């Protein structure tokens, strides 16, 4: 993990999400949760950021063999940016529907792949933008407001 301080933001965290090991998926989210607590953000904000990022991290491991996660804490919001170079999302509107999933039975047997990942990410954040190109990858930017 890399932590950088900038003038225009309170703090920035960057993580490599390992896509080869499902067992370790979620470690970046656990780290972020710890750091946000140290920054003194409200428990509700921390929970929303952690859950959204955790779902994103799991998605990256399941669908894209990992990627990069960036969390920026500003005065008024927390921004989560997840970038992968996976297969991309064919139909974003369809993927946003609860219950729709392209995950394998193996992933379902691990407790995920119920088609709740992206809807949960949207549910817990104030804004979510998805950019995806088939064969190139997906970038998801989520924002949780502090007020």
């Amino acid at each position, binding site marked *: 993990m890399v932590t950088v301080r900038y003038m225009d933001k309170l703090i920035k965290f960057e993580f490599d999400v390992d896509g080869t090991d499902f067992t370790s*998926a979620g470690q970046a*989210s656990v780290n972020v*949760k710890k750091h946000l607590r140290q920054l003194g953000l409200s428990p509700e904000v921390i929970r929303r950021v952690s859950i959204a990022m*955790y779902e994103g991290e799991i998605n990256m491991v399941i669908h894209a063999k990992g990627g990069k996660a960036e969390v920026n804490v500003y005065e008024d919001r927390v921004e989560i940016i997840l970038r992968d170079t996976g297969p991309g999302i064919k139909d974003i509107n369809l993927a946003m529907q609860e219950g729709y999933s392209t995950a394998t039975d193996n992933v379902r047997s691990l*407790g995920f792949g*119920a088609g709740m990942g992206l809807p949960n990410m949207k549910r817990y954040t104030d804004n979510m933008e998805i950019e995806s190109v088939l064969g190139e990858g997906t970038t998801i930017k989520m924002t949780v407001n502090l007020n």
Partner: protein
Amino acid sequence: MKISDIKELLEAEVLCCEENIDCEACSACGSDMMSDVLAYVKDQAVLLTGLVNSQVIRTAQMMDMVCIVFVRSKMPTEEMIELSKNAGIVLMTTKKRMYEACGKLYKSGLVGNGEIHG
């Protein structure tokens, strides 16, 4: 309901974080699908599950859950117990099946999350 009451009702064995057994649990959720848990659970909840992998602990950690009960005598791995210790989450295992375990807790007053938050 206290976690210690849940232990008694389910005749469960505590596997870690026994020091937190007097903590209060406000609601419960029974599921093997972690994304469902992430969608609907709030506030000091207990998770009952038959799923055994590290993501069960991480899910509970993300949701600020206080206790996980493994049903049907399922046992978490050492790695899961370590993760749980770090998060301060009480782990228990019970011989009871999911339906029976949920029923016993519900009948004793531990409601589902939907009944608190709609």
